[in-house]
């Protein structure tokens, strides 16, 4: 089920005016920042559907900026996030994209700094709840109901086993897992939703495992 907690319905505590267009947008921005692992220096943000039509009125623009700056939904600096981003030299460009998308509240963020970049697509499904549907060209479905780790790796035999072995050793149970690759032997992505939170020392251990390129964690 999409919604499994009463606090998905009674909540979040947030700065107005819209749970899907403001709080949800802030959460997608924050997820992008967390996956990037640091504050980006630039962001190109494509808005689709209702997001594209009403983003100024709903504060979707400052909320996405607030998320990229690491603000939680209830942060009262939210409505000033565009100015704060400017002060912190985070350059953001908004693009009203007329392409058709499956969900009316869809946003694509391409963020980066001098060394790295990352591209994610998020949807805001209502009441502040969001899903990440694409990461660096890989389709995925992250509900945000559970803690999750995303692992970019090289498509080689043993890569998956080396990860699951470490998780088993730490008694972490996998609730859902997806593996996606661009082509045989190329870059691939593991998405693992776990029942327990994965502590940072375990992440470090995973990073050292065979064929692993990059790891990010999302806490539900």
């Amino acid at each position, binding site marked *: 089920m999409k919604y499994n907690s009463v606090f998905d319905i009674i909540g979040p505590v947030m700065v107005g005016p819209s749970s899907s267009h403001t709080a949800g947008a802030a959460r997608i921005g924050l997820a992008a920042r967390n996956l990037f692992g640091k504050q980006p220096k630039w962001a190109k943000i494509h808005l689709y559907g209702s997001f594209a039509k*009403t983003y100024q009125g709903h504060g979707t623009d400052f909320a996405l900026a607030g998320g990229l700056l690491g603000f939680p939904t209830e942060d009262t600096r939210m409505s000033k996030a565009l100015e704060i981003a400017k002060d912190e030299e985070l350059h953001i460009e908004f693009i009203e994209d007329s392409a058709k998308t499956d969900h009316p509240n869809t946003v694509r963020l391409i963020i980066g700094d001098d060394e790295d970049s990352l591209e994610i697509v998020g949807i805001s499904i209502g*009441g502040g709840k969001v899903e990440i549907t694409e990461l660096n060209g890989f389709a995925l479905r992250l509900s945000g109901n559970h803690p999750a780790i995303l692992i970019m790796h090289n498509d080689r035999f043993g890569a998956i086993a080396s990860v699951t072995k470490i998780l088993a050793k730490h008694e972490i149970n996998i609730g859902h897992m997806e593996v996606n690759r661009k082509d045989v032997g190329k870059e691939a992505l593991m998405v693992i939703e776990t029942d327990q939170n994965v502590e940072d020392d375990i992440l470090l251990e995973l990073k050292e495992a065979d064929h692993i390129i990059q790891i990010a964690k999302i806490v539900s």
Partner: protein
Amino acid sequence: MFRTVQELVEIAEKENLLISEVMIRQEMDVKNKIREEVFAEMERNLQVMEKAVEDSLKGVQSVTGLTGGDAVKIQTYMRENTPLSGHLMLDAVSKAMGTNEVNAAMGVICATPTAGSAGVVPGTLFAVKEQLHPTREQMIRYLFTAGAFGLVVANNAFISGAAGGCQAEVGSAGAMASAAIVEMAGGTPQQSAEAFAMTLKNMLGLVCDPVAGLVEVPCVKRNAGGSALAVVSADLALAGVTSRIPCDEVIGAMYRIGRQMPSSLRETGEGGLADTPTGRFLKEKIFGTTV
């Protein structure tokens, strides 16, 4: 886990529990938390709601100037007159509108289930409180009961205007509030379901047509309508009136209606009130562009 209102009511009846208690136990189970933690989290939400109503009664104004100040006007009117719709009713309406005015002014609110509809559940709670004198625990339970019904709607239909129109937002919020009022007033779980169904039935087809795409016009006043209807339906259910169409089927109807709604009436700011001469004029005045 309950998936439908029928399942929710059945669990409550079979185990002789309040709807709120079914929700609390499920939350503890899903999140692997103890009762105190779950209560503390809801208490925090309740405090945010109280603060928002308090702030609104000091008078707030949105950046655009389109909304704000109506909650104060209504409270003043109530002090100086005998309101035709009754004190409790108008108190609920003013507190619902006040919460939404704070939301429009980019203040801090608790989404219930969304920000645009955030006034209805707290507005009715704080008005009904004056008459029923609930304990703090009962006030927190009010939110769990509302949340239990909201979960069913979210999982079987939608709670966002972009997906299903205003019926999914203020419609759901009003229906959730009806169910919670019934429990607080001592009604049965089935009566909560009847109240929920009767409110949602009256909200079916309501479109999301925000002027200039802002969560202001008509959102603030729709929170007034949603909270008034919530009180009426709760009374109907407590009087023993039942919905001829079962609650889950009303939710199903809401879903199908939302699927048939054109996108111009689902939070794009293109149709309905947004597309009136005044709606277009306001948009141009605020953003300097025409529709």
